[in-house]
């Protein structure tokens, strides 16, 4: 297969089943993600979004099919990728800032982590957590912990971001602010973003393409390209085109909900 430099992820005929539980989590997923684009996965609970993200992140292997990133098979967590999980998982023995600096420490050592402290502080300010650097995770609210986890993922400036419901525990305002930040970061770094979300407006606001998924078995049911100009501001949500897109996505979701779910 020819390597297309414009493509980051190229997924073909991917299937994943959990044999023990007798579940087909994903069936025949085919998906090309152009480099620098933002796509979102939206779909009913249990349709395989997290599973797909785990496979893309090299943390889980598919049952059949191929997953390539920049032309190479994904066989483990690729260097270019930063992942944020549905569960934040901060380490209780590290302060907030130490948690955020963890990926730097792991990839480049303690000294690099010390050097990166200003960036970490800037990220904390961005997510509204400045002043909480030295607090410990059990002193944070749910949303604060989630924001700290976002900072931890952003600190390494990954080329590809895999985000699993990153803003689920945030209020709408903070969430929208975060959406714009993600858009800004992606544009500034030419990064590719794949985000799982349950918020239809968020999906439309962020994405170049929305993949609507359906369940039993988990699959991609519809692909909706969002042709709105970038950079997008919150005001775009007033745009009638935005409304039309949200309606389309909502309809796709409705269809994806099978009777059992």
């Amino acid at each position, binding site marked *: 297969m020819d390597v297309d430099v414009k493509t980051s992820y190229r997924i073909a005929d991917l299937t994943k089943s*959990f*044999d*023990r*539980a007798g579940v087909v989590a994903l069936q025949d997923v085919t998906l090309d993600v152009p480099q620098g684009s933002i796509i979102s996965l939206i779909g009913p609970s249990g349709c395989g979004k997290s599973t797909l993200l785990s496979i893309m992140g*090299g*943390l*889980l*292997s598919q049952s059949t099919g191929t997953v390539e990133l920049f032309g190479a098979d994904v*066989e*483990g*967590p690729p*260097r270019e990728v930063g992942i944020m999980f549905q569960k934040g998982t901060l380490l209780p023995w590290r302060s907030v800032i130490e948690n955020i600096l963890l990926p730097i420490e792991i990839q480049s050592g303690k000294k690099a982590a010390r050097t990166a402290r200003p960036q970490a502080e800037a990220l904390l300010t961005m997510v509204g957590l400045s002043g909480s650097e030295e607090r410990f995770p*059990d002193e944070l609210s749910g949303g604060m912990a989630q924001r700290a986890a976002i900072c931890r993922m952003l600190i390494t400036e990954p080329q590809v971001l895999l985000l699993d419901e990153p803003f689920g525990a945030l209020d709408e305002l903070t969430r929208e602010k975060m959406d714009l930040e993600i858009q800004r970061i992606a544009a500034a770094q030419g990064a590719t973003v794949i985000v799982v979300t349950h918020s239809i407006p968020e999906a439309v606001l962020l994405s170049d393409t929305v993949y609507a998924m359906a369940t039993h078995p988990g699959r991609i049911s519809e692909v909706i390209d969002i042709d709105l100009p970038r950079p997008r501001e919150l005001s775009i949500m007033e745009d009638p085109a935005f409304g039309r897109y949200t309606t389309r996505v909502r309809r796709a979701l409705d269809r994806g909900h099978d009777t059992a779910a």
Partner: protein
Amino acid sequence: MTSSPTVHQPTGRKRSRVSLLSGWLDRLPQPAAVALVVVIALGLWQLLVSFGGVSEIILPSPLSVGGQIIEVVKQLTTGGFLMGQLWITVQEIVLGFLLASSVGFLIGLWIGQTEFGRKAVMPLFVVVEASPKIAFVPVFIAWFGFGIASKFLMAAFMSIFPVIINTAAGMNAASAEEIRLFRSMRASSWEIFWKLKFPRALPFIFAGLKIGIVSAVTGAVAAEFIGGGVGFGEQVRVAASRIALDRVFALILVLSMLGLALFGLVTLAQKKFAFWDSKKTT
């Protein structure tokens, strides 16, 4: 019961030779792996005997111990005296372990669950444990005689501490969220303990029981050593004072295999009762 989907190994750098070897070792079936270790251990042992400048009355050679093992097994399988001695010791071990694990569990709870236990009861047990317990053998014999009662109590005495400490440590294993959940359901202390803390403590408790069962073996043997009388440990002592080191090692090996079998039973119980804690995907 937990599903363990296949996962990728972390890649990046090329795998080092060490990790290739270790991967190969990890994939050996258990009998082969055990055989490998046994062969290496025997080889080292033979080397020590051959070149370590150690006389046979200090460290017998694997070969002569092997001969004695055959002898011992022969005596065991034809029943009679030695089998009787082993049976006595087995009883001491099992009774001692059962006593130590049940009482140790209760004391561990007391220490792990209450401030008073932690602050005042624990030091008492540390003090008792730090004493050379064989010094209490005469007291045990004075009270319980030369029969197996004094021996299995001694075995229990010698194996109770790991159970206590690990049970106490395990009482801290449930997360704050889980405890909050139970409190919100108005669970009584008993239910918080039984339905939450106890299952969460199982990995600790089983580690304690594993140490305990092995200590019970040595405890029973030590009690026989000091307290005299009958049992397999006494047979070891007799062989030792005859300087029949090959015999000593052969008898010890039989005891050790017994210990290993009991250890295996505890591990089986762990697999059954703490199934959800079995190996996580690495």
